[in-house]
């Protein structure tokens, strides 16, 4: 089909071309800037390896802290002597939780959240329980891992 008249003027065509170029240039620049500004993120560890002897003979009804990536894990010896390991970060706003031996509960000072002996959220704003880790031993090493993670230690 032949049109007798042009659908767009030369001016419209050029404006669109230059405008499009400008938008493309600016968005490319912005993308590059943001790409640099956005950090390359680390990853939360799947497991950490600790020295077993640091964690033996702990008093019952107490916690011992260990580094879990950039945050904290708690090695918790219950009053009956059994142990569990949990992530010491409140599920509400990510503050570190503290253990209250008298109440046998975990407490977050930021917004008054409470968790029971098994890390279950029992009072205050926390929406979820504390994350429970799996404890295993290998020789002198104590391995604390996320649930469902297969631990493969590098061969020394």
């Amino acid at each position, binding site marked *: 089909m032949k049109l007798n008249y042009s659908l767009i003027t030369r001016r419209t065509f050029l404006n669109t071309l230059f405008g499009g170029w400008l938008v493309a240039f600016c968005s490319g620049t912005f993308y590059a800037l943001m790409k640099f500004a956005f*950090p390359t993120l*680390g990853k939360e560890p799947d497991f950490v390896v600790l020295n077993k002897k640091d964690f033996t003979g702990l008093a019952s009804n107490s916690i011992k802290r260990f580094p879990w990536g*950039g945050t*904290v894990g708690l090695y918790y010896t219950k009053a009956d002597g059994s142990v569990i390991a949990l992530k010491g970060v409140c599920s509400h*706003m990510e503050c570190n939780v503290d253990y209250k031996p008298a109440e046998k509960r975990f407490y*977050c000072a930021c917004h008054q959240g409470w968790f029971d002996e098994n890390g279950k959220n029992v009072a205050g*704003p926390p929406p979820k329980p504390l994350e429970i880790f799996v404890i295993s031993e290998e020789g002198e090493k104590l391995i604390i891992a996320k649930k469902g993670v297969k631990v493969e230690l590098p061969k020394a």
Partner: protein
Amino acid sequence: MNCPRLKDWLDERYDWDAIKKLAKSKLVPEHRYDLWYYTGGITFFLFIIQFVSGMLMALYYVPHVDFAHKSIIEIVTKLNMGWFFRSLHHWGAQLAIAFLFIHLFGTLLLKSYRKPREFVWVTGFVLLGISIFFGLSGYLLLWDERAFAATRVATGGAGAFPFIGWFIKAFLRGSMDVTGDTLLRFYAFHVAILPIITLGLIGLHVLLVQYHGMSVPLTLEKEKLRQAPFFPNVFYKDLMIWLAVMGILVTFTVLMPPEIGVKADPLAPPPENIKPEWYFLFLLQTLKLFPGEILGLNGETIAILLVACAILFFFLIPFFDRKSSRGEKSPLFTWIGVIYLLYFLTMTVVGFLS
């Protein structure tokens, strides 16, 4: 002062008389609410103090996770007048935020945001947001326990925002958790990125105010008001008020220097009865109202969304308030303004007392 040769020198290059005439032509109406006009100027003055005292401390502060806390202790204990300038910067920030809120609610209740001044409101609102981010980022630079927990909560709270939350959170933190990367990032925001944006926005805000002239409250618009020249009458009043504010500021600075807590330890729990800065208390109290779960949904996300909506509505008030933009009385928006103000005040007080 009379230097005819200097005056001639300038006259040959610039149209000096036209500049003078322009300055003389600026008039400010006089009425019973004109005290509110000074709140913006006070905030501006406090910003100048923040810039100067901040520049001074930047000469000595070390933005590194191992040295930041110690460098502040050294600024306060070893440098000449270090304690004074750190305290001045702290109290200057508190007063600046306080006057920003006073300026904001004054503008809101007198409806100075109405047509044609919507963009003055928009620039001012963005400046308030930036100032709060100034407060948050400056606070982390102490790298003490309270700052550490506050930053985790604030950035984590942003992370609860649906869809883009994780992006904002990672962007702010510079890593998965609040670490030395976050400290460096907040330092860059605090001393480079935010100040330059602030300067630009203050320039635009003030320019727009000059362009539109001073807003007169709706009830007085029809009356014939006396006009006072800005130079020198109002300007001198400004200076007098700034001097009084300076007096209040220095009194706080000298009598109540801020503390610095124990150095942040990512393994340690935050101190008991930890509280954020006073201008975050209303947010904290709002978050506390929500249970962890509402109808199977994350209560935190709902809380953050509701707060975001309330702030967005507040921001858009000039565009919703059709009546006052037509020059009619708009009692509905007066009530909305009063409700916002009362909510902010009540929640702040409750947060302070609990």
